[in-house]
């Protein structure tokens, strides 16, 4: 933007704002459970906001509100018109709007989590929306999934393989999953979790904490974007309920 225009809409500008963390993955792999676990673990130490992209309804947002892991006001739901991947990759306008709404209402925030709607293995977040992204698989989807790759599995900053407690029951070989994931991810980290057993997903929370700390070191302490508030004020999307 030219010097004459106070560009208030460039999401790529990272200085002094929260880390934006995208969480994607297939339907039922445990994305919402992971968001809830992260809120449980990180809520006491970080200022959080959450954006959900339900396929329909506000199921995920409602689940998080009921779970009581984060102030319900800090959860916004975005509708995606049958196209969850479009809303996080090709046309991120509604999600950016929701993220900035949270930052304006409750800022400064340390971490804004954007949970995608359940999608397929090709779904990834635009870098205009998420600074870091986690892709969540579960063992019951089949232990061949990491080998199949796809942009979500190969390019996410962290791959989480959830529901390890089910591995014996579904005949999934975690060693195979670990080896295949390492082969396609070029050294990027993989964590195995069972959120049912570890309600705080502590290994993932620790990784996120490192990311937030690194983000803050690089881009400075988050501060409230008051100028933006002046231009785009109150009448934004109300919290879906």
């Amino acid at each position, binding site marked *: 933007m030219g010097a004459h225009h106070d560009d208030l809409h460039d999401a790529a500008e990272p200085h002094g704002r929260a880390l934006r963390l995208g969480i994607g993955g297939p339907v039922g792999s445990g994305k919402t459970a992971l968001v809830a676990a992260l809120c449980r673990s990180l809520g006491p130490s970080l200022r959080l906001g959450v954006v959900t992209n339900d396929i329909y309804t506000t199921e995920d947002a409602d689940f998080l509100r009921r779970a009581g892991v984060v102030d319900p006001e800090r959860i916004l739901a975005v509708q995606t018109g049958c196209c969850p991947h*479009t809303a996080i990759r090709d046309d991120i306008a509604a999600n950016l709007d929701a993220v900035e709404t949270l930052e304006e209402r409750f800022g400064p925030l340390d971490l804004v989590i954007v949970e995608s709607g359940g999608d397929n293995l090709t779904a990834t977040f635009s870098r205009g929306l998420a600074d870091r992204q986690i892709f969540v698989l579960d063992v019951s989807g089949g232990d061949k999934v990491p080998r199949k790759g796809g942009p979500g599995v190969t390019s996410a900053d962290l791959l989480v393989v959830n529901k390890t407690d089910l591995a014996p029951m579904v005949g999934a070989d975690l060693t195979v999953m670990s080896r295949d994931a390492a082969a396609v991810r070029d050294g990027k980290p993989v964590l195995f979790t069972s959120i049912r057993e570890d309600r705080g997903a502590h290994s993932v929370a620790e990784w996120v904490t490192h990311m937030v700390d690194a983000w803050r070191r690089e881009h400075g302490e988050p501060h409230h974007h008051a100028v933006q508030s002046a231009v785009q004020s109150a009448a934004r999307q109300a919290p879906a309920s």
Partner: protein
Amino acid sequence: MNGDAALLLLADSRLPAGGHAHSGGVEEAVRRGTVTGAGDLARFLRGRLATAGLVTAALAAAACELAAVDSGGSAGRELRAACDPGPPPADDAADGVPLWRRLDAEADARTASPAQRGAARTQGRLLLRTARRMWPSAALDALARAVPEGPHHPVALGAAAASAGCAPRQAALAAAYTSVTGPATAAVRLLGLDPVTVHRLLADLAPALEDTAHVACASLDDAVPADDEPDGCGAGHHQGRQPGRHPERQAAWQAARWHALPGHSAPALDLLAEGHLTNPMKLFVS
């Protein structure tokens, strides 16, 4: 440059401005069993174009013209008195903020359903966000300041069109086009209709889209008479006038007859928009 390429970008469904999540009432019509197939959809689209489509086309044309007239500078200062006699902040007076508010209020007055107003403002806010990065301009900045909660979509569309280098007729065409293409795409997704059948419906509507843009511009000529029109509906608001500063147009805007812009109502669309909000399983925002 005549704005044709910019028009393609602006009307493209891939424009990243949040439009993909709006069905224009189709989702609720499907839920109620009003739209069940291609035949119903054809009638729905024709009705939508003749009402909401025409109104938004005229508003977009007006916004495009206004952005061209008032691309910053003194125009707003002199026009302000005609629209908003109260003493404004000095900053606002210089950039046409009162006129943008007035045009947005005209859009509000033509949108009976609160749900539709909300959807129009959400889409307008997201389009403005995208347009300000794609085609930065003083007019878009002024519009953002004038309507901080987000302008109506056709107002944002017209301002974006002007900033992109389009003429009012192209802005009207883009508004008419998006008034039917969004709902058509939503119907494909919701009902599993043959996409070629639905695009055939859109192709059949092409002449009506052109007519709608024409009528929209004619109404703009009535509301804000062009000073160089050869045939009553010509050069003023059509391809002839190119974006840029047109201070000579200030007088015309000062005396604008806002009521000349169409105000067709579509009660069924209003009811569908309100009903949509009560749907606990909705896929689209509107």
